[in-house]
């Protein structure tokens, strides 16, 4: 409010500088900016008819007559004009490209739209079809496995690395607790897959998992083991491959996230634990983990949603006949022109991710520890 009321006030003119400045500070002290607080040199403003105020919306403040400018209603108007100018464009963007497609998706999931001009309302038919569709359940099984396993694997790795980076080293730089050597290098190494495009990640790992010329089977070959066809037919192997790639590409984000959370814990708490004779593991489970639990829970929800939304990696890397996640199944329906059906799958995915978030919030709810 303090600054809000002063929007649009002109720079003080030369002749009445002092009185204006006095008025300004008065205004800012008195947050309502009431007329009683005005300086003495100002004539009491006569109230304007409301209608005359409105054209002022279109005028820049410099051209607005003083009488109008000092009217309290103009202040409100001016504020909303600012909001309109500054916030309307981003909001319009949101409405057009994020909110509206989303609402449309919900509507079209109840229709049989297939690209033509007509979209008939067919009630819950799409959802019924999905319920009876074995392919959908197959894909959902894969997605559900990813939803359960990926966050655990990624978060455990992320927390471990973060702990090593922030508190793994002892007696470096004269401090009781410090990161291991080269911790910033590790952070960048882990984080880097985050800035790669998913399609490149998928393509590179597709080569790494390649049966004949891949890096992994090459290594197994050297060790005298016949490498399996990772992405060639077996569902479990393909799932392991998928899990590896997702964890590889997301773990860096969580390393950074958890390092920041651990860095926010006051050093003396760790030092106290150290003085009491706690080792690394004891310190971690007794002190660090409880203190960053809130962040871990947030990360768990994020990672779950990302796992459920695995799309490009599966589409590009894993052949469709081997294994499919639900978003890939959705995309195939989309490609076939079954738009109504595709959106209903999208809606189900969205409901699932919201449900997952709520469950994790409930399950992971602990008393917050303030420090």
């Amino acid at each position: 409010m303090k600054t809000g009321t002063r929007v649009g006030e002109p720079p003080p003119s030369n002749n009445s500088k002092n009185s204006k400045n006095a008025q300004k500070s008065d205004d800012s002290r008195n947050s309502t900016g009431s007329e009683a607080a005005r300086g003495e040199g100002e004539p009491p403003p006569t109230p304007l008819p409301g209608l005359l105020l409105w054209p002022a919306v279109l005028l820049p403040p410099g051209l607005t007559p003083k009488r109008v400018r000092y009217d309290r209603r103009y202040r409100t108007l001016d504020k909303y004009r600012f909001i309109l100018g500054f916030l309307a464009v981003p909001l319009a963007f949101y409405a057009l490209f994020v909110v509206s497609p989303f609402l449309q998706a919900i509507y079209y999931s109840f229709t049989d739209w297939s690209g033509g001009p007509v979209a008939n309302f067919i009630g819950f038919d799409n959802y019924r079809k999905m319920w009876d569709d074995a392919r959908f359940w197959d894909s959902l099984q894969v997605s559900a496995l990813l939803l359960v396993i990926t966050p655990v694997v990624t978060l455990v790795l992320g927390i471990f690395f973060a702990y090593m980076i922030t508190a793994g080293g002892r007696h470096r730089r004269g401090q009781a607790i410090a990161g291991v050597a080269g911790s910033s290098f590790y952070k960048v190494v882990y984080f880097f897959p985050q800035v790669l495009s998913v399609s490149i990640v998928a393509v590179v790992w597709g080569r790494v998992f390649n049966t004949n010329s891949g890096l992994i089977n090459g290594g197994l070959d050297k060790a005298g083991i016949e490498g399996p066809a990772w992405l060639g037919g077996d569902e479990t192997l393909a799932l392991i491959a998928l899990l590896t790639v997702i964890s590889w590409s997301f773990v860096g984000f969580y390393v950074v996230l958890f390092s920041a959370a651990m860095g926010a814990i006051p050093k003396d708490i760790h030092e106290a634990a150290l003085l009491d004779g706690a080792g690394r593991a004891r310190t971690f489970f007794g002190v660090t983990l409880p203190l960053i639990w809130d962040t871990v829970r947030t990360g768990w929800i994020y990672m779950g949603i990302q796992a459920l939304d695995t799309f490009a990696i599966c589409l590009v890397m894993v052949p469709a006949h081997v294994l499919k996640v639900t978003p890939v199944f959705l995309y195939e329906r989309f490609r076939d022109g079954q738009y109504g059906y595709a959106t209903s799958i999208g809606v189900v995915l969205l409901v699932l991710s919201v449900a997952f978030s709520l469950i994790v919030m409930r399950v992971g709810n602990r008393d917050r520890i303030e420090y």
Partner: protein
Amino acid sequence: MATTTTKSPAPEKGSAPQKGRARKRAFRPRTLVITACAWLLAAVFLAPYLEMIITALRPKEELRDRTYLPRNLEWANFIDVWKESELGQNLQVTLLVAGGATLLVLLVSLPAAYYTARMRYRGRKLFLLLVLVTQMFQPTALLVGLYREFHQLDMLNSVWTLILTNAAFNLAFAVWILTAYISSIPPELEEAAMVDGTSRFGAMIKVTLPLALPGVVTAVIFTFITSWNEFVMGLTLTTEPAKQPLTVGISNFIGNYTVQWNYLFAASVVAIIPVIVLFAFIERHVVSGLTAGSVK
């Protein structure tokens, strides 16, 4: 990872009693095992990049070899890939889309962030919440809705379509990080400038903006990188191979009967280079910026 326990005692000067204690634990077998595991993990993390660069330099004849290093290096792959495929056009599309989206995001998000940081208006919390919540929307859920919108506008295959969607998707993060940055600049600086005779707008341009520059740079580069890497919308909103962004063009290679890995990875390396360069600039800011909202 845990290398320090083995390495650090030797070069460290001073604090003799600590040195002795550290040496005692230095050669414990457990430490060695942990160190070995740590290096192995780091190798696993780096291996795909090496594989990509090496394959990009492999001559065609050696593609099916199981040797880790090719006998000859074929630098011409980096040139031939543009002749042999449509990737040149794809690169052009990606450049336009990433550049356009970044510009648009900057123009739209800066005023909004400035306003949100400086003013307390009704619905401010709601606005910030909206920004966060929409971040959580999955692109696959929006896919059909967006497709329908652009289908009706007859804008499929257009560069503008991708610019607009990318800008809309990145707006949230830009507004969020810029708001945080501008809020951290004391408003008294602006007030001082205004007392000295600048207009509010002038104060914003001449005082706040230069101070918020690191945040602006972060938002800009981040938007550029995400738009550069965007895949799902590029895949669904474009159908003609020549009008698709580079990421989609690269993934199209995989569907072919025989995958030309050398060209594929040469193109991937080219697609990654701008990202590496830009990321090097903002690494510190992104890392702190990403965590600004999530850690108290």
